[in-house]
């Protein structure tokens, strides 16, 4: 992307009729000064937008609600990403985000972790390397590889794979950040660089089918890795199929009331709504309850789009708080998620807000792993 072009030249905004449906739905619009509709208007009438001093640009979680809702097929989030790109190119970038980007460049993950430790979580689990040949590449992702809490998700998934006798392998220490968030914070150059490497890796391993832990990896592989001719699934899609065709059977029961929070990158951006619910509803003993704001109307956890790496302009108010209120209002014991970002964000918010005693935040596959 050439940043000497104006925002109006870089983003396709002329379809906009300023109806405000984007800002109206933006989950952040109440807690920050971010107003994407107005940014589009400024681009249209002034020809360009100067992002200097617009700290609120880093508030956007790129949840995609604005894109989903726009009746004129404008993609408002593009403006924010394009403005971030300008800031990144000019070196005006929050230090924590800069660190994350540097880390991705150097270590292949945003968390300053050592690449050689990337597969440590899988030790002793009998997970083979994809280079040994397998039907399915399990693309683990950065957080499930390194984060203590989320490693449990990866392990649970491995358990399910074994149980269902799936022939799968991982990239191991070769795996690198998918760069979904890198792209969303505006670092287009790094994104392209890593994508190229990753694509070469996929083809050298003859990968034909990828299953991801994270909706974010799933999203970027599906929609943004140009020329990637590989079947990509989020694990909920794959596991739902395993349950459907009888390959994964339950042996225990889970007598809990469970509700489900749709991750933005799975739901709003990729319309995967049914499979996670199908998995939960097929677990024996589970009483599944929907919250009010679900599916297309789901809330954002506030972890995506680079927000994991920065606090934003208003860290005090958390969207997660109202989410917990809703979980409580439907009387659920467990809020199931299907995304590492959601899991970590909610975990943190639960502790901060004192909800951790009333609600258990867990990934769907962890529930599955308990009863197989």
């Amino acid at each position: 992307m050439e940043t000497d072009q104006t925002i109006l030249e870089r983003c396709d905004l002329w379809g906009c009729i300023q109806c405000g449906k984007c800002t109206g739905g933006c989950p952040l619009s109440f807690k920050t000064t971010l107003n994407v509709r107005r940014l589009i208007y400024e681009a249209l009438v002034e020809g360009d937008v100067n992002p200097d001093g617009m700290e609120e640009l880093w508030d956007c979680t790129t949840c995609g609600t604005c894109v989903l809702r726009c009746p004129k097929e404008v993609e408002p989030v593009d403006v924010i990403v394009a403005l971030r790109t300008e800031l990144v190119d000019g070196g005006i970038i929050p230090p924590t985000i800069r660190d994350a980007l540097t880390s991705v460049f150097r270590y292949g993950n945003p968390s300053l972790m050592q690449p050689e430790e990337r597969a440590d979580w899988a030790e002793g689990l009998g997970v083979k390397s994809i280079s040994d040949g397998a039907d399915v590449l399990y693309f683990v992702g950065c957080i499930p590889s390194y984060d203590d809490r989320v490693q449990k998700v990866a392990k649970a998934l491995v358990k399910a794979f074994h149980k269902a006798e799936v022939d799968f392998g991982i990239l191991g220490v070769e795996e690198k950040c998918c760069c979904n968030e890198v792209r969303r914070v505006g670092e287009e150059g790094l994104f392209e660089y890593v994508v190229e490497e990753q694509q070469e890796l996929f083809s050298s391993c003859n990968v034909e089918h990828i299953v991801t832990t994270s909706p974010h990896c799933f999203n970027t592989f599906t929609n943004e890795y140009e020329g990637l001719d590989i079947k990509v699934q989020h694990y909920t899609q794959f596991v739902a199929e395993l349950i459907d065709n009888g390959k994964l059977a339950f042996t225990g029961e889970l007598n809990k009331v469970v509700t489900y929070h749709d991750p933005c990158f799975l739901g709003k951006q990729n319309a995967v709504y049914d499979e996670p619910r199908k998995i939960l509803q097929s677990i024996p003993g589970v009483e599944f309850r929907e919250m009010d704001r679900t599916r297309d109307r789901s809330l954002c956890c506030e972890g995506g789009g680079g927000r994991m790496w920065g606090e934003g302009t208003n860290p005090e108010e958390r969207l997660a708080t109202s989410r917990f209120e809703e979980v409580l209002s439907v009387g659920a014991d467990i809020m199931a998620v299907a995304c590492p970002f959601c899991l970590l964000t909610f975990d943190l918010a639960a502790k901060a807000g004192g909800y951790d005693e009333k609600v258990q935040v867990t990934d769907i596959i962890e529930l599955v792993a308990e009863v197989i």
Partner: protein
Amino acid sequence: MPPKVGVYVCHCGINIAHTVAVQDVARAAAGLPDVAVARDYIYVCSDPGQQSIQDDIKELGLNRVVVASCSPRMHELTFRRVIQEAGLNPYYLQIANIREQCSWVHSERGSATEKAKEVVAAAVSRARLLEPLEEREVQVTRAALVVGGGIAGLQAALDIADAGYIAYVVEKESTVGGKVAQLGLTFPTLDDAGTLLGEISERVEQHPNIEVFTNSELVDAEGFIGNFQVKVHRHPRHSDKGAHSDNAEDLAPAESVLELGVGTVIVATGFDVFDASLKPEFGYSVYDNVITALEFEQLSSPSGPTGGEIKIDGRTPEDVVFIHCVGSRDRNLGNPYCSRICCMYTAKQAHIVREKLPEARITVFYIDVRAFGKGFEEFYDQVREERVRYRRGNPSEIYRRGDRLVVRAEDTLLGKPIEVEADLVVLAAGIVPREDAGQVAGPLKLSRSEDGFFMELHPKLRPVDTTTDGVYLAGCCQGPKDITDTIAQAKAAASSALIPLSLGRVRVESVTCAIDPLLCSGCGLCAEACVYGALALDGRTGLMTANQVVCKGCGACATACPSGAIVVKHFTPDQILAEVEAAI
């Protein structure tokens, strides 16, 4: 023959029966003077209901019928036909409205029933005094007059002529075509207006059933549906056919007045463009580079002064600003209405500028973009994609800075006052009623709506008919319209006009006024009260006469007459008093 009344009380399913004890009403009616039979029935309007009325007329020799049911607007005609088929004069029918005026507006059963009884008693009392009226028809002159030779008038004339009847088109200007002749491309399909018009006017020219009078004006009209006598003033320089002939050699003799007999009249007199100098804040007529949209059509036309190049004083504008709603949605000017076409013609003009000046900055100031017709929103989408900036706000003034204009506005979406420099400003001037609308309205007795356009008979269901039978409206004389809607409406007016032409005869109102020559003093107050022009002074007798074809039986004359010389048949004082007395 003494009156012998049959009373039929309808349940209307449960519509009446759930609040009114219909059997009690029938029983009470049976005891009224001269009532021979009183029945109640689930639906009197149904086939069996109608049959029982006809059977009673034949078997019991009824000579008056009262139906207590819904509003006469629903079924008066139905029951008139029913009793007529059984041999009675259709005016021997009286409807007692016990639905809209009783069961639907009351909830307490006891008092509603009492009221229904009274309504029926009043109806019976009146029915006893009803007199037979004659049903009359007049022959129709199988030709139509079309006033106005714009696209509406031409289309209407074509339909009339295609159906085999003569259409006379009277056009004030020296050529037909009206405002469409001044346009370049049309929205949203960008068809060339000249080609469209050419297609129609060529057919008009060649049609054996159409006669066009240009340089001509309707000056007088007399008569009524089926038989209008109209006078057309023909100015010199007229040319009968050659619609497009501007040839000065083609001069006609002196002025003349032509008299035509027609059965129906279609009014298609069009509109005037709003005079932009009435909005002085925009500097129209002060600044050369502030022009109206109609002037833009000329400017962008290949046959215009610049050969279609967008140039002002030889310079190519870099910034072009369009301003919507000039003279529309403006209570200050007495034009509260929307002119319906400006949003879209502006979009089209912005598109033309973009095509001719790919580098120009184009700004459209709007309040609401009204892209409502088929393909309109899609066109609006297209124009924005062509890099036309739509800014929300109605500019407040235009002034000069150096050799450029400055448009001052609030951008209401930024919430900020702004100045936009411009080399060309195009004002989307609205549509206003024609200044000379009165010339046509007078002779044809047309009413005008509050907005000044001609008034249709009913805004929903009778959009092309008028209060004058036989006179119909087409195109923008009834209100702003685009070409598509104008064509549809012109054909609609043709349909209304074709009904009497096609039948060759038309039924006229039987309920009319009657003047008692012994009481009339010829004072003429009644004629002043009559909106239909049915009353005239007979110079020979010094008394008033009523045209029984034009009269609608409204009764305004009867109330105006100081000597009580006028009665309206079917609503005579005796009949009305009998009804009132029985009711109280």
